[in-house]
């Protein structure tokens, strides 16, 4: 019984775990990885719905999301590296320059 409910439930739980990770962890790289977990959860939901409706466009969309994820990580990691070089720390609580 690999039904839609089970896979969607797994996807939702993974998404919530990723969101909690982004909120509670203080290392910028770990937060980035938790965002990747959220993206993976979304892809799982997309594949599930694509299988349920037996259409191909869901799988095509997943393929495009992979490209977006690769582009995202290629930009996000240089930004994190620049931040860590300026503040000499990866702790997000030190990044308070934009604080009003």
């Amino acid at each position: 019984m690999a039904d839609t409910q089970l896979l969607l439930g797994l996807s939702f739980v993974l998404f919530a775990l990723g969101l909690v990770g982004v909120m509670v962890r203080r290392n910028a790289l770990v937060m980035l990885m938790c965002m990747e977990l959220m993206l993976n959860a979304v892809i799982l939901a997309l594949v599930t719905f694509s299988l349920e409706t037996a259409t191909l466009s869901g799988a095509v969309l997943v393929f495009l999301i992979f490209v977006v994820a690769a582009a995202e990580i290629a930009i996000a990691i240089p930004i994190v590296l620049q931040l860590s070089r300026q503040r000499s720390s990866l702790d997000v609580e030190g990044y308070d320059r934009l604080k009003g």
Partner: protein
Amino acid sequence: MTIEQLLVYFFGACALLGGVLMLVARHPMRVALALISCMLSLAGIYAMLGVHVVAVFQVLIYVGAVMVFMVYVIMLLDVRDPSFLRRYSRVLLPGVVLGALLAGALGISAIRLGAAAIQPGASAAPSYLVQPFSVEFLREYWLHFELTSVLLVAAVVAAIAIIRSGRRSDG
């Protein structure tokens, strides 16, 4: 219960375990390894569901490119960083409560959706195999495929711009 169903359960449990380990592990390298195991489990689920193209790209792009990049960056960084020692920020309790509420709300919506069974392997439409998928993909969605190259060029230019601006601010 067939072996495919059992494997979907197994891989699902592994993915959940990897997700939880990501939250409790202290060192970013362990977090990265937990995320890699979670992604591999998800790739196993996709393969068991018969969506082989997505499973292959999950392993090739996510584990092979994105996470290897991430692991290299972790190795470049200083292990004595204070954020490596203290795991959680001040919003730990509200964050966990909010996450549990979100998971509960989404779970209720999943239960209300009703159970439409996906038969693993058996019901997989033949169009999810590699060859029909590729033909269909490049026949119907070739414009999207070409537009992704524009996105990739923009990403490359942006990455170079970030690195150059960082150098200028240094010296």
